[in-house]
C-alpha cells in the first residue's frame, strides 16, 4: 500500500452537528484528467459491467448527517455539492444511512456491505479494503480528478489503486484565547500540560488524536505506530494532564464551542473551523502551529464492492468534488477542499484561507503536518485511553 491515512476519529465528532452535502451531477465524463494509473484502477469487472442506462440509479449511501446532496429531500444545510447529479437523475432515488463516528461507519459498512458509496476518513480505509468492502474508482470517470491534490490522492491509494476520492480535509491543533494565554507559552503541544492554565483546558475525547499529540510531544518516531512501552508512556502523560482539563469534550457544537465562547475554557483541541468562526466574530483567538507540527485529516468517498450503480456512483462523487461544490464546501463548513482548482477569491473567510494555507496546495504535504494514518495497534490505544478517562 502506498498510501497512509489519517485521522479517523477527528471526523467523528467533527461532523456530528454539521449539515449538508450535495449531489452534483452528471459528469460521466471520460478523459479530462485521467491519471497514469487509470487503467490499473479500473475494476476487473469493467468489461462485464452494464452501461449506465441499465443501472437502477437507486443509490444507497452511508453518510454523516448534513452532507446530503442538494436536490434531495434530506438536504437542508445549503451545500451545493450534489446539484449536478440531482439535476440529471433527480434526488428521489438516493437514500442515506447515517453515521456518528468512524467506528460506527465501519461496523455498518461491514454488517450491510450493500452501500454504493460511503464517506469515511483515510485512517480507516485500510480496514475497509481488508474486509473486502470496496472496489477502486476509475479516475477516468471523474472529470475533476485531475484537479485533486496529488498528495491527498496518493494518501488515499492502496496498492496503487484509488480506493478513496478525497474531498474534505483539515488541521487539528490547539485553539487558544490570545488575550488570556501568554504567547510565550503557546509554542507546542505542551501547552496542554501547562499548570498555569489548569481548569481552563479541554482536550477532545478522541483516543487516537490524544495519543498522537502526546506522541508528538514525547518525540515518538512514529506516532501512528507506537510500541507497547510508548503507549504506556503516553498514557501516563495523559493521566498527568487530566486534572488540568475542565472536561474532555465530546461534541464540538454542544460542549467545546459554548465553553470556549463563554470563557469557561481558554485552550482546547480544535479543528480549524472553530478558529475561523471565532476569529470571524472578533474574538481574540489563535490557532497554534506547534513546534512539533499540526495533526491533519482527510476524508472522502469510497465505492462499495457490490455496487450495481457503478457509473451513477462516479457521477455522484464528481458532483461533490468539482470546483463549485468544493468552493461551497470551504465557505459553508470551513473545511479544506481536495480540489486545488478552487478560486481563493471566492472564499469568504480570509482567516480560514490563512490558517489552512489554501493558496498553497503543498501546505498539507509539509513536513510539519502529520496527516492521520491507520494505527495498527488502535485497540490497545483505545483501551489505554479509556483507562485515562476512568483513572
Amino acid at each position, binding site marked *: 500500500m502506498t498510501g497512509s491515512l489519517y485521522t479517523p476519529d477527528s471526523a467523528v465528532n467533527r461532523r456530528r452537528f454539521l449539515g449538508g452535502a450535495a449531489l452534483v451531477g452528471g459528469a460521466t465524463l471520460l478523459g479530462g484528467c485521467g491519471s497514469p494509473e487509470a487503467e490499473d484502477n479500473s475494476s476487473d469487472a469493467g468489461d462485464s459491467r452494464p452501461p449506465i442506462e441499465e443501472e437502477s440509479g437507486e443509490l444507497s449511501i452511508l453518510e454523516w448527517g448534513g452532507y446530503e446532496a442538494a436536490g434531495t429531500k434530506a438536504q437542508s444545510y445549503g451545500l451545493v455539492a450534489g446539484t449536478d447529479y440531482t439535476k440529471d437523475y433527480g434526488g428521489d432515488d438516493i437514500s442515506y444511512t447515517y453515521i*456518528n463516528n468512524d467506528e460506527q461507519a465501519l*461496523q455498518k459498512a461491514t454488517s450491510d456491505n450493500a452501500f454504493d458509496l460511503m464517506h469515511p476518513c483515510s485512517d480507516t480505509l485500510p480496514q475497509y479494503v481488508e474486509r473486502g468492502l470496496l472496489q477502486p474508482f476509475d479516475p477516468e470517470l471523474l472529470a475533476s480528478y485531475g484537479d485533486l491534490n496529488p498528495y491527498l490522492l496518493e494518501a488515499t491509494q492502496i496498492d496503487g489503486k484509488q480506493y478513496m476520492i478525497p474531498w474534505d480535509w483539515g488541521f487539528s491543533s490547539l485553539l487558544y484565547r490570545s488575550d488570556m494565554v501568554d504567547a510565550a507559552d503557546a509554542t507546542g503541544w505542551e501547552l496542554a500540560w501547562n499548570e498555569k492554565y489548569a481548569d481552563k483546558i479541554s482536550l477532545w475525547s478522541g*483516543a487516537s488524536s490524544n495519543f498522537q499529540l502526546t506522541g508528538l510531544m514525547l518525540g515518538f518516531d512514529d506516532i501512528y505506530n507506537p510500541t507497547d512501552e510508548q503507549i504506556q508512556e503516553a498514557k501516563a502523560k495523559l493521566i498527568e494532564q487530566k486534572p488540568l482539563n475542565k472536561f474532555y469534550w465530546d461534541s464540538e457544537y454542544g460542549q467545546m464551542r459554548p465553553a470556549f465562547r463563554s470563557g469557561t475554557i481558554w485552550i482546547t483541541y480544535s479543528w480549524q473551523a472553530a478558529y475561523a468562526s471565532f476569529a470571524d466574530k472578533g474574538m481574540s483567538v489563535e490557532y497554534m502551529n506547534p513546534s512539533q507540527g499540526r495533526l491533519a485529516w482527510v476524508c472522502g468517498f469510497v465505492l462499495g464492492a457490490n455496487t450495481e450503480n457503478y457509473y451513477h456512483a462516479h457521477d455522484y462523487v464528481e458532483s461533490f468534488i468539482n470546483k463549485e461544490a468544493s468552493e461551497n464546501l470551504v465557505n459553508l463548513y470551513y473545511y479544506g477542499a481536495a480540489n486545488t482548482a478552487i478560486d481563493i477569491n471566492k472564499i469568504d473567510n480570509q482567516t480560514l484561507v490563512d490558517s489552512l494555507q489554501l493558496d498553497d496546495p503543498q501546505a498539507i504535504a509539509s513536513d510539519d503536518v502529520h496527516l492521520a494514518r491507520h494505527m495498527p495497534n488502535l485497540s490497545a490505544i483505545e483501551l489505554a485511553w479509556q483507562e485515562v*478517562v476512568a483513572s
Partner: protein
Amino acid sequence: MAGGRSVLTEVTSDSDELISTRAAGGRRRLGRGALVWPPLLFVAAILLAPVAFIVLFSVGLRSNIPGTEVAFSLDNWKSFLFGEENPFRSRFLYSMQVALIVSVVATIAAYPLAYFLSFVAKRRKYTLLLLLLAPFFTSYLLRVLAWQIMLNDEGVVTEAARTLGLVGDTETISWLIYSTFSVSLVLFYSWVPFVALPIFAVLENMDHRLIEAAGDLGASKWSTFWRVTFPLSIPGVIAGFVFVLIPTTGEFIAPLLVGGTDNQLFGNSIQSFFSTSPNWNYGSVLAMTLIVVVVVLMLLFGRFLNTDLRSTSGRSGQ
C-alpha cells in the same frame, strides 16, 4: 387490623375470580395463554437475546471485529475484578456512590412534594401534578443542556452570585459545573418527579380514615405522620427510591455534558467501549456488571414492593 382485613378481602376476591375462571372452561384458559405467550416470547427475545450476546462478548466468544479469532477467555473479567488499581472498578464504585446519594436525596425531597399534592393541594392536585411533569415533555438531552447553560461560568447562577457580590466580577464558582455536584444536581432534578409519583400514588390510595382515627385517639399531627402516614407510604418511598437508583447506575448523558474529567460515571465507560473507543469485549464485562447490579437491586426490592403495594391497594379498596 385494617390491613389484615383488606388482605383477606383481596384473597377472597381473587379466589372467587379463580373459581369463576376455572368454571369458564378450557377454551377461556387457552385464550388467555394464547394472549400471554406472544408478548412473553417477544420480550424474552428482545431482552434476553441481547444479554446472551453480551455474555458471549464478555468471555471472548464473539468479537465486533470481523476476521478476529474468538476463544473463551476470562482475561477481561479478571482484569476488571482483580486487576491492580483497575480504573473501571474505581469508576464503578464512584458511580454507585453518586447513584446512591442522588437516590436518597431525591427521595427525601420528593416526599414533601407528594405529601403536599396529596393532602394539601386538594382539588388542584392534578393540575399541579401536570405542572410538575411539564418539563418532562421535552427531551432529556435539552434539559441537561439547559442546566449546562445555567451553570457555566457565564451562566445565570454565576451572574447572580456576582450581582449579589458573593463572588468577584471575574471570579467563577469552580464546583458549580463540571463537578460531582453538577452531575448530582442534574440527576436529582431529572428524577425527583418520578420519585414523587409512586409516593403520591400510595398516599392517594391510603385509607384516610386511619389518619382521622389517629387524631380521634389523641395523636398529634406529627405523631400521626410518623406512626401512621409514613409507615403506610413506605412501599411508595421504596418504589421511588428504586425508580431513581436503577437508571442512575447506568447514566451517561448528564456526566457527559455537565461532568468534568473526574466526574464521568460507569455508564460513560460502557458507552465509550461500544462507540468511540470500541472494545465490545471489555465493554461487555462492564455492561454485564451493571446488569447484575440491577438484577440484584430488583431482587432486593421487587418482592417487598409487590407485597406492600398490593396490600396498600387492598386497604384503599375497602
